[in-house]
Structure formats: C-alpha cells, structure tokens
C-alpha cells in the first residue's frame, strides 16, 4: 500500500508543529504526512499529544507554530472558521452532539463546504441506526449512535479530510465493529482519514499507516503491513 500511495498527492503535511495550552508546551516538533485517500492513525499513550495534533490542525489550541499544509495551503495563521471550509471535517473525542438540537438539526448543522458530500439517504444507508430518529434530542441517542451522528454530520459537508478522534472510546464491541465497517466504506469512497486511537486492534483493521506519538512528538511510523514484525516495539511504545 505505501508504495502505491506514494504516487498520490500529499493532502496534509505537518512540519515541526509546536503547540501550547497557556504556559504548557504540548507538541514539540510533530512531523506527519497524509496522502490523499489514506487512512492514518495516531497511536500513543494518554497525553502523548494525539488529540492536540488534531486540535492544532483545526486551529483550536492556544498557540501553535511550525507548518500545517492542507492541499498546499498553510493553515497556521489562518482564521479558525476558514480552516474547515477548505474541506476538513472534525469529529471530536467527546463527540460534541448538541443537547439543545434534535438529531436532524445536529445532522444538518455543519455547513456544506464543498460539493460532492454524501446525501442524507446515503448517510442513512451507512448508519441505519440514525434513520427515523430525526426528532429525538441529540443527546438521547446511545453512545454508539451519537458517535455515528458525529461522523455522519461531517460526511454531508463535502469535506475530503476527516479527523476522527477516538471513535471507539467507551463503545461495545459490536458497535465498534459497525464503526469499523463504516470507516472502511468511507475509505472506499475516497475519503482521507486521520484517526486517533487507543484501541490498537481496531486501528490495525482499517489503517494504512500508523504514527506513534510520545511526549509531544512522533517517534515512529509503521506501515500496517509491517505491523506483525513490529509488535514488540509497539507494545513498548504503548505500554500494553
């Protein structure tokens, strides 16, 4: 896969990314490349900087410097609300389903930023659980359904890069399976996906490459097909 992927164009290039929350320096020179159509995971222990990397891409950290280029455009210094409009969809760790909005309103909330997004019937086909729940209060859905809704609402917008922060956290194995199927279908549709995961088994079933993060920088990159040879190393990184 990596050989095939190298001919594809770079979609996201992160170079020497530093990020800060107030006084604390969280990212110390992160370098990541994501090519178009790839599924890439960020692995690492709690506090390694995976979520902060995603938040830095979206521009919602205190301060950041270095370089983040999306389809050649520099995101650092760009106004926050313009970044998603380039075609980046963000599914936060806490899912961010709005309690004061119905399921439909949650689904329709993010503005369409590009043509070519999925239609609502296509989304229901991908996540049948959401169908017929339109008037339900968003936060009355189960945890798994909320996760599906959080992904679903991004698919409508036409974003071609999707940032998924721990989509399997706290979910039952059968739901994790469903999310995995959905992510693979999205990959087939040509979406580029960056995934933060603690659940390494889940990550191994869907990703092309894995970046391992420790203490605010990337310490290793393992292609998914070389995973077996690198299991010992990975176990040391993740402390499992």
């Amino acid at each position, binding site marked *: 896969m990596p050989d095939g992927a190298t001919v594809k164009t770079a979609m996201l290039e992160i170079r020497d990314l530093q990020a800060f929350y107030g006084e604390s320096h969280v990212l110390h020179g992160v370098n990541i490349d994501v090519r178009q159509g790839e599924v890439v995971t960020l692995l690492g222990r709690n506090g390694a900087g995976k979520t902060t990397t995603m938040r830095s891409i979206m521009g919602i950290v205190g301060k950041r410097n270095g370089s983040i280029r999306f389809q050649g455009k520099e995101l650092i210094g760009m106004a926050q609300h313009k970044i998603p409009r380039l075609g980046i969809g963000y599914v936060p760790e806490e899912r961010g389903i*709005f309690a004061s909005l119905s399921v439909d309103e949650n689904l329709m909330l993010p503005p369409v930023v590009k043509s070519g997004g999925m239609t609502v019937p296509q989304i229901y086909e991908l996540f049948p659980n959401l169908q017929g729940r339109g008037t339900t209060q968003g936060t009355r859905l189960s945890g798994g359904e909320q996760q599906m809704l959080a992904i679903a609402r991004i698919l409508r917008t036409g974003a071609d890069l999707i940032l998924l922060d721990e989509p399997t956290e706290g979910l039952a194995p059968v739901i994790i399976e469903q999310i995995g199927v959905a992510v693979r279908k999205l990959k087939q549709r040509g979406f580029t996906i960056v995934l933060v995961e603690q659940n390494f088994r889940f990550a191994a079933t869907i990703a092309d490459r894995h970046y391992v993060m420790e203490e605010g920088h990337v310490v290793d990159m393992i292609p998914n097909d070389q995973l077996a040879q690198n299991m010992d190393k990975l176990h040391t990184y993740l402390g499992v």
Partner: protein
Amino acid sequence: MFDLLGVPPQVLFGQLLLGLINGSFYALLSLGLAVIFGMLNVINFAHGALYMIGAFVAWLLLTKLGLGYWWALGLSPLIVGLLGVALEKTMLSRLYKLDHLYGLLLTFGLALIMEGAFRHFYGVSGQPYPIPDALKGGQNLGFMFLPNYRGWVVVASLIVCFGTWFAIERTRLGAYLRAATENPVLVQAFGINVPVMITATYGFGVALAGLAGVLAAPIYQVSPLMGTNLIIVVFAVVVIGGMGSILGAIVTGLGLGLLEGLTKVFYPEASNIVVFVVMAIVLLIKPAGLFGRER
C-alpha cells in the same frame, strides 16, 4: 354587573390589562437578556439603559427630525442595535476570557455612564411622547375599555417575542445559535464564524430593548431613569424563568405582569414585592428557574 370576590370587573380587568402591558415589557426585555446571557454568558446590566436610549432616540427623532412613531419603531431598535454592536466589538469582546463578573461590571458601569449622560442633558423630569394618530382612541369591550395603543403594545410584543422564539427554536440560524451557546469551539470548527454571531446576538438582544423603549415612550414618559425603575424587576423575571431560557423569559414576563396586576386588585400593599417573593420561592425550590436547565 357581577362582582368577582367583591371586586368590580372593571377594576379587575383594568388591573389585568395594566399587568399584561407591564408583562409585555418584562417579556421583551427579559427575552433580550436571555438571548444575550445564553450566547455571551454576560448579564447585561446595560439593558435598562439601552431601553431608555431606545425611547430617547424615538423622542429625538420626533423633536429634532420630525420623524414620527412608525419611523422610530424601525430606526430606534436599529440605532440601539448598532450601539450594542459597537460596545460589544470595542469593549465586551475583550472580557470573554475573564470571569463573567467582569462583563457584569462593565455593563453596569456603561449603564451608569449612559444614564448619567442623559440626566445631564435632559434632566430627570420626563419628556412626553404622543400616541400616534392611528392608535388613538379605544374599544369598549363591554366588560372594560381598551385603549388602542395599549392593545397594540401587547400584540406587538407578543408577535416579536414569539417570532424570536420561533427563529431560535425552529430555524437553521437558530440551530447555529443554540449550538454555539452550548459549544462555541466546535461550532467554529465546523466553519461558522462564531465571534460574528456573538456580536450579532448582542446587537439583536439590545435592539429588542430599544424596541421596548419605543413601545414604552407613549405610555410612560421618556426619562433617563425609566430603565432603572424597570430593570430590577426584569432581572427577577429572568431569574424566575431560568437564565438563558427563551421561552422562560417570555412566559415568565407575561405571567408575572399579570400576577402583579392581580396583586394590585386583591392585596395592593404587596404589589411591588410580589415578583421578588416569587423569585425567592422559585430559587428555593428550583434554583435553575422554572424553565432553566441545571448546568
């Protein structure tokens, strides 16, 4: 005619109408406060002063430019709204990262400055504002006499209140507003310009106060102190309805106006404090307010 509990119906309905009028102003003002509090987390102490400025703008338009009531009804909320936008942009927006108390202190200070300035130039005695010709006179409803202008105030306020409620609870723009109230960072991460929304919300909230000021001008006199007298009760209304609750502000505003009216009929001595008694009881039983969500 029949009597109700020994009260002549004319007296009862007269007081209920008065209560409904007061309630209309409570509703309009507490609605603006609720919208602002929901989005900005700022308790807008300048609300009473901006209501007063709304009335003064109407009066100035009439006396300086000869523009009558209907002009004022459109222009005055616009001018007050723009004033609000300027205040938010230049001052309030600098305080969001600090404790909410600073927003309260700033708006309280602004209210004192605005009221002080108008007192300096126009004194404390009120300026009369005529009822527009189209709304002079009244209707005899059989059980009571309804002055046209007062009927208009109630109807106009109800339309604006429920129009606002509909826009916030049932439209796409309202969904943005509700979502940004809950989680502004995420809404911004979907590509919506939240700071502009916040500015617009403040402008809209104070424009409602400006509109209430125009509606009030022909009923109460246009005076620099008109806001101070009203705003304390309005804050009680907001607390009873539940901070930030749109429907709570509307229903509680009208309901408490009526309750005040009834109290004036049956136990006039308590009419000035009944709202605060209700506030104390509600705070004891349901601290988040009748329509408020526990945070």
